[in-house]
Every structure is written in structure tokens, then in C-alpha cells.
């Protein structure tokens, strides 16, 4: 019942927040740090809109207690661009029209980013599997798969 201090990195910056241990990571990100790029779309860890990266691995932030991130590095969609330059996957999304309403997009980008960092010449099926945990109601996924495929095929270089 006592609040405690959580010290962790978000998008490369050190943060210190004072929270109840029951606070979810997504609540710290959105409500305490004001980073509203990460969304919430369900209560059952189903939709993936809250996906962030923890030490490079994609995780649903609605299903993680923030205190478990002590000393870890979290990346959200806001952390993908560098000095106004979009990351390869962000640029690929723009080129392929891989979003419509955009609500699932931050989570989708984080799943894709984690996958791209570890995948070597993935098949289309593997790419589809990489976003299996992210629901999109608008695009039908294929444009997202095409965008990820283009990046893993080397068509986008870091700027």
C-alpha cells in the first residue's frame, strides 16, 4: 500500500516516478509521463495497442507492473524517431499506407521494431506471426506486413 520510487529509462531518458506498486507500466507511461502515443484498447491483454519495448523485447505494457521495470530500458513509439528523423519502419509505414485510424499503430510499430531488430530474412508467415499480438480493425494487416517486409529486405537504411 505504500508508494515507492521507480527509476527506469524511457526513450533514453532517466525517469524517477513515485507510484503505488499496483500501477501498470502503461499507466506510468501515459498518465505519469504523459506519453500518450501508447494506447489502451482492452482489459484482457488481447489487443496489443499498449505494446512497448522493454530492453528491446516487445511486451504489452498493460500486463506489466511498472515496478518490475526498475533499472530497465523502455522504448515507446515516441522514442523511435531521432532528432526528427523517422526510423526505417516508420518511413516504411508511410510509404505503404500501413495505418488508417492509427490507434493500433504505435503498438504495431513497437512489435515490428522488436521483430526487425532480431529477424534475419524472415518469411512472410514469420512477419505475420510477429504482429499476431496486435489487433488492427482497419487495414487488414497486409499493408503492415508489406512495410515490415520492405525493412527486413533492406530497402530502408537508418538516416
Amino acid at each position, binding site marked *: 500500500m505504500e508508494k515507492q520510487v521507480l527509476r527506469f529509462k524511457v526513450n533514453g531518458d532517466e525517469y524517477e516516478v513515485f507510484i503505488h*506498486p*499496483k500501477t501498470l507500466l502503461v499507466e506510468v507511461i501515459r498518465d505519469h509521463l504523459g506519453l500518450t502515443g501508447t494506447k489502451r484498447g482492452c482489459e484482457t491483454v488481447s489487443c496489443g495497442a499498449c505494446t512497448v519495448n522493454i530492453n528491446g523485447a*516487445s511486451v*504489452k505494457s498493460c500486463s*506489466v*507492473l511498472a515496478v518490475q521495470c526498475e533499472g530497465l530500458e523502455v522504448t515507446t513509439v515516441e522514442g523511435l524517431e531521432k532528432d526528427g528523423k523517422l526510423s526505417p519502419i516508420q518511413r516504411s509505414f508511410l510509404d505503404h499506407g500501413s495505418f488508417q485510424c492509427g490507434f493500433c499503430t504505435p503498438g504495431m510499430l513497437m512489435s515490428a521494431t*522488436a521483430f526487425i531488430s532480431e529477424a534475419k530474412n524472415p518469411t512472410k508467415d514469420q512477419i505475420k506471426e*510477429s504482429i*499476431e*499480438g496486435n489487433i488492427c480493425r482497419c487495414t487488414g494487416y497486409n499493408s503492415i506486413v508489406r512495410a515490415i517486409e520492405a525493412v527486413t529486405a533492406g530497402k530502408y537504411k537508418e538516416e
Partner: protein
Amino acid sequence: MINDFHYLKPASLKEALAMYAEHDDCKVICGGQSLLIVMRQGMVAPEYLLDIKHVKELSYIKFDEKDGLRIGATTTHREIEKSDIIAKKYPVLVAMEEKLASIQTRNWGTIGGNLAHADPAGDPGPVLIALNAEIKFGNSGGEKLVPLDEFFVDYFETQMEQGDLVLEVHVPAPEPKFGCAYQKFNLLDSDMGIVAAAASVTLNADGTCKDIRIVLGNAGPIPLRVTKAEDLLKGKKLDDALFAEAGTIASEECMPVADIHASEEHRRHVLGVLTKRMLKKAFEQAQTAA
């Protein structure tokens, strides 16, 4: 809404077990992929929450040709999925993990947490039982090792008592001429199975069945071994007719519960089909195994 709880963060396994022994109304969290859902729904509201996520001693994958595979309880599903040695020696485990929930869940959720949660629809249970696994759990007073198919007791209930922690899963070294297959039936590929079946076959040198295990998922309160069908097939020369018969027995012996996704009849029928198919697949694997 999650209740207000006291948060405990042990630095080592010893400290974790000691803290756990100290508090009666205490639950363990590691990946929390099952626990947090029920806590958010208010179904579980412990006074203390013991976080073992960063207890490194329980995170390992070890393989020995004689001893087999040992997986620490806080190993994530993703680590199992990506393990080269598990892919080589127990490919059915990797195949099962690839279809378990989503990558995000596998990145954070653990094998120990999954088994402790004891969901009869869970994927690891039936597969590990088919692989003849044992599970080690313990508390501050000592450890216990039991066959996994004795570990599960009822819906969401295991042999463990307050103060017990899952420590390790041990899968014996695969025998020569061994095969194991698992399939779940669902609408969406990575959903929990509406029903599921795992089968393992060990063949004698002459090709007859030395050992066989048939384990059904979401067919009752715990992963269900269809011993009646196993007894029918043991010692025999296996063929499609026997697989079909085993399937029929499985569809009769199971105890599936109907819900909006499928009626009882459909579940029984599909369990029979899956049993037949997984037996054949395991048998074919065993035949070609080195």
C-alpha cells in the same frame, strides 16, 4: 481494479522462499501474464505480492545427453521458443511455444507461472506430460519432485500449497525412436485451444509400440491422459486403424465443458480427430528418428 498490496522484491531464491513463508495471504508474480488479468478483475486480491521476476537463479535452460532438459521456472516462453538445443532435441516444445499467445506474452511470461496457473487449456501442460516431464517445487523447508501429470489437481489448482514455488521442469532425455506431436483446435491460430491433443510414441527396435502417452488439453479439469487408449496401443504394431480407435476412446473418455465456442459433442468429436492425427504424426516421427 487491482487491490492495494504490499510489494515484496526478494534478491535471491532463498530470500524469496523465506519471504513467502512469512506471509499467508501472499501471491507470487513473475511474468504476471495470467495473474494480472485475474487481479484486475478483482478475482484475486492478495495482501502481499512477491515478485520473483528478477530472481536470476531460476532462469536457465540446461541440457545433458543423459539427464535431459532442465528449465528454470522463471525462464520465459520466448527463451524456450528461441533455444537452439530445445529446437534440436524437443522440437515439439518449440512448435508449441510458437503458437502460445503472442510474442509480447512470451517475452515476459514464464513457464513456471504458466504451469502454476494450471489452466487446463494451457499449451505447455499436455506437451510436457507427453514428454514425461517432472516438476520440482519447494518452499523454505524443502523441495518436492513429482511427475507433471500428478502436479495438476483441478481447474487452476495444483499440488502446491501456500508457500510453495515452482522451481524447475525436468524433461528426460529423448529415447531413440521417439516422436511427440501437439495440436490445438481453435479459430485463431494462437488462441488457447478449444480443445487440444498431445501424443508421444516410443517404438521398440522391432517397430512395435514401447511406450505411448496421449494427453488432452481443455478436455477436463486437468490435462487428461487417456490411459485406456494408451493401454490399447502399448506393445502393438501401430497403424491407422488403431489410431482411429484410440481417437474414438479419447472422444468417449474426455470430459469437455461446452461454452459459446463449441458444444460438448463438437469438442468430443474434435478431440477424437486430434488424437488420431497426433498419434499418427508422433508415430511417423518416431519411425524416422535416429
